[in-house]
């Protein structure tokens, strides 16, 4: 009785103090030049760049009226890392939880952020659009500053991205074409540090700063390093960890780090480097600045140390001097022991392959993710009892149906020579094992009978790197009913189909969630059906729902050898060659025939002469040449 009252009071207080943040965002193009090298069209919100940082407190409510004023593209917004518990339709990915927001449409994102604190970000989830600039930070602070599990004097945010000079849609066309048969990812032109380069950060001496860092890039991971200073990692992907000191940070796209820096009693200025992970690039242009120099400034009057050079060996020598802490070994601050053995295991074997159109696609168990005709959440909501039948979600969407509150393991075998950051929507997961990298001819796959001991207190995050030709094992609890996307956060690979869909506790979703009329209206404006299976079919009987004719599927595989076309061509070539040889023979033999003709005449003549066939009157010779005989 007593405790219930306290609970109720606490709940009431929370609700009282919980704020509602409302935003009206007009998403449109704007001319800008963040790296100072090329002016281009970028995406702005309310005509401002960089995009605003959303700052809310835990338990707050956020309402964003997102209006698409781009004119030539659809859009959507995903809030990376937020659980969206009970608000699956606010998660953001097109054709997974919502319809694309067509030009002129407005989608209202309305959700709460309970049980979460830390560094998050938001970005477009419509194709490679976020590379054009639709990305910004989303900070969830605790109730008050004392509620942080660590002390600091000041805090700032730091966003890292890669930057391209061309528009993402254009880049995608040349990337996903048969003239890029190796699937080489497009090389960025620069790396940005808080949307600029050569930045300066003025600091006071002997101060503890809390820096909230997010890698909002499309492709490359980055290293962070401050000369003469160390970092203390205190938060990772919105999960507080036991403070861990390190000299540098390795941050992959999608990941966030909360770090503490203690400034000293310096009277000079130091370099603050953000460095592109060079080995991730397939070609390494000489003019690309892998090492970008910014400065931490103690004293304005003192000169800045010169920017580091970018020679042939600069990156390698940089790498030799740093030792970033392996995030696998971080320990969550709150006690969260290893979950017990999984109830359901998802095995994913990933490789890249050229399909029948000559383009390289990313395949999970030989299937590349192809977006269905009806967003998966809407298939779920309209299919009644069939919502737990994974077939209705399509044969080419890599959909797995999960039961409520089951412990799920994802075993991801990466049979590709690249490293990949994988991200799960709606959840954080325990990273219970990660293999070291290996070579192409000897990829390491997970062996359930022969693997390292799972850590007792594994690190928990929502975006994790898997090593080249290695594997990673993730574990989480399916306690968040909804449709959640799991995909590589290198956006180019997502375009190639490196994704799966988790339909988690479908009946719970049907009971507690529904779509508003405004959301359905957005679907009407982008001409996307809101009920039916992956092919858009529905009906009264199960047979109707299982009929997937017309669904979107990946291209056929490359023909393995001779096809009918090949046989016909080969036969034709052989036939013409034979005919040609025959005519050569005919022509050649003619020469003999002609000779024979002459010979015959001479023979005939001599025969006639001998036998007196030629009478005295016929002394004229038959051939002219023997007139002297």
């Amino acid at each position, binding site marked *: 009785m007593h405790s219930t009252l306290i609970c109720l009071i606490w709940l009431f207080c929370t609700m009282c103090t919980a704020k509602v943040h409302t935003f009206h965002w007009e998403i449109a193009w704007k001319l800008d030049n963040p790296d100072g090298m090329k002016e281009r069209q970028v995406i702005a919100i309310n005509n401002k760049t960089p995009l605003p940082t959303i700052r809310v407190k835990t338990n707050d409510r956020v309402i964003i009226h997102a209006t698409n004023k781009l004119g030539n593209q659809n859009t959507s917004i995903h809030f990376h890392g937020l659980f969206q518990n009970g608000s699956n339709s606010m998660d953001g990915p097109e054709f997974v939880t919502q319809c694309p927001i067509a030009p002129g449409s407005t989608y209202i994102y309305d959700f709460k952020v309970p049980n979460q604190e830390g560094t998050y970000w938001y970005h477009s989830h419509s194709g490679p659009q976020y590379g054009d600039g639709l990305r910004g930070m989303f900070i969830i602070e605790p109730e008050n500053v004392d509620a942080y599990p660590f002390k600091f004097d000041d805090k700032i945010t730091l966003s890292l991205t890669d930057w391209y000079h061309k528009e993402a849609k254009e880049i995608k066309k040349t990337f996903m074409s048969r003239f890029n048969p190796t699937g080489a990812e497009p090389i960025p032109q620069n790396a940005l540090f808080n949307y600029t380069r050569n930045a300066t950060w003025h600091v006071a001496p002997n101060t503890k700063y809390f820096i909230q860092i997010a890698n909002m890039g499309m492709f490359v991971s980055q290293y962070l390093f401050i000369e003469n200073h160390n970092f203390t990692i205190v938060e990772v992907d919105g999960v507080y960890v036991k403070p861990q000191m390190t000299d540098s940070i390795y941050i992959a796209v999608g990941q966030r780090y909360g770090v503490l820096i203690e400034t000293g009693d310096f009277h000079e200025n130091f370099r603050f480097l953000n460095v592109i992970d060079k080995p991730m690039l397939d070609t390494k242009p000489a003019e690309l600045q892998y090492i970008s120099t910014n400065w931490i400034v103690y004293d304005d009057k003192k000169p800045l140390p010169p920017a580091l050079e970018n020679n042939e060996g600069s990156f390698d020598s940089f790498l030799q001097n740093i030792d970033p802490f392996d995030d696998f070994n971080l320990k969550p601050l709150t006690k969260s022991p290893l979950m017990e053995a999984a109830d359901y295991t998802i095995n994913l074997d990933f490789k890249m392959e050229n399909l029948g159109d000559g383009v390289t696609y990313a395949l999970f168990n030989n299937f590349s993710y192809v977006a269905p005709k009806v967003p998966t959440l809407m298939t779920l909501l309209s299919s009644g009892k069939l919502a737990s039948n994974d077939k209705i979600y399509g044969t080419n969407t890599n959909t797995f149906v999960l039961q409520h509150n089951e412990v799920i393991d994802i075993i991801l075998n990466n049979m590709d020579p690249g490293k990949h950051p994988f991200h799960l929507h709606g959840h954080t997961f325990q990273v219970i094992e990660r293999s070291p990298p290996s070579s192409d001819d000897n990829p390491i796959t997970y062996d359930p009978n022969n693997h390292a001991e799972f850590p007792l207190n594994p690190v928990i995050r929502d975006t994790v790197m898997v090593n080249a030709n290695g594997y990673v094992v993730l574990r989480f609890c399916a306690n968040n009913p909804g449709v959640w996307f799991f995909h590589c956060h290198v956006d180019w690979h997502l375009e190639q189909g490196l994704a799966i869909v988790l339909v988690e506790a479908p009946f719970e979703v049907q009971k507690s969630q529904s779509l508003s009329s405004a959301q359905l209206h957005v679907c009407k404006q982008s001409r996307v059906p809101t009920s039916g299976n992956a092919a858009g079919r529905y009906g009264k009987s199960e047979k109707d729902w299982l009929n997937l004719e017309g669904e979107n599927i990946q291209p056929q595989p490359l023909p393995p050898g001779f096809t009918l076309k090949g046989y016909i061509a080969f036969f034709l070539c052989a036939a013409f060659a034979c005919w040609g040889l025959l005519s*050569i023979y005919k022509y050649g033999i003619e020469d003999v025939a002609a000779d024979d003709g002459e010979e015959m005449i001479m023979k005939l003549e001599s025969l006639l002469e001998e036998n007196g066939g030629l009478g005295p009157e016929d002394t004229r010779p038959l051939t002219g*040449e023997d007139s002297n005989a």
Partner: protein
Amino acid sequence: MANKVFNVQIFFVVFRESLEAVIIVSVLLAFLKQGLGGPTQDREVYKKLVKQVWFGAIGGFILCLILGCAFIGAFYSLKNDVWGKSEDIWEGVFCIIATVMISIMGIAMLRVNKMQEKWRIKLAQAILKDKPENGSRIGHWAKKYAMFILPFITVLREGLEAIVFVGGVGLTSPASSFPLPVFVGLLCGIAVGFILYYSGSTTSLQVFLVISTCILYLIAAGLFSRGVWFFENNAFNKKTGGDASENGSGPGSYDISKSVWHVNCCNPQIDNGWDIFNAILGWQNSATYGSVISYNVYWIAVIVVLFLMLYEEQHGHLPFTKNFRLRNLNPSYYLKGKKKEELNEHQKEVLFDEIKNKKFGSTVSENSVVPERQSLTENRAD
């Protein structure tokens, strides 16, 4: 690509040219025999003149070899500098050049008798073309050794032609693939020439010539197809920004939109043995529309041309025309005034009669040539 040791195209070119050289010698010897070989005539002079012909021919031949080696050597060292990159587009161009050359000379091999006839007329005219050179020492010397100079110059000219052809068809091969086919080609050409001379044109020889021409044309068709394939490969490589075919034979090494068939093995550029298959039959493990269609187009062209030539031989003119011959289609026919040079049957008869009457050796048996000559002409004038 092409065989590193034996370039088949070079073999056939040398074969054909040496065959022609032997024919020249045999025609000259035949004339001599006709004129001087009979029992009633001067044996000494005959032998001397025969020797002259042989020396002339062999001399011309040796000079050719030297010049040939020098030319090819210089050509190759230059080629490596200028076209060191060996780009696909150059490969394609060289293939097409080789095809054209081979196609043109291949036909001639089937008409050895025609070749003989042509040389009889040419040489006869050359012999009878003596201009009276009064008192000129060189002119005197030239007439004395006319039977040396004529084969020497003719063989030299034919040989230089051969060198140019060899250079043309050998453009696609490394220098190491030259010596062997040249040697074997010479051997075969001389052998066939001898057989021709001693036995006359027989059916079995003709069959041999037909078979060798068939092989030659198979090679030429393959070359043509390969040339087109190189052009398409070059276009694909440019678009992918690198040498896609260096990625092996697997997916992504070719343009799927232009592919007619593709197998991941048997690549003539990479796999051993398949390059010979490619050299003789034009096999590609990754065939394109271009390579397949060009192969068929080549054969169709050959079939049509052969048909027209056969028709003209049998009827004297091209189908659906009157008195229009293939020779009329050659632009140099009109330019060089070859029309005037054509001899009809009667003129040919007169020519060969004159040869028979020509006193070979009248210049050799006497020290001073001029009086003899003058007396002859004086006699005539009287």
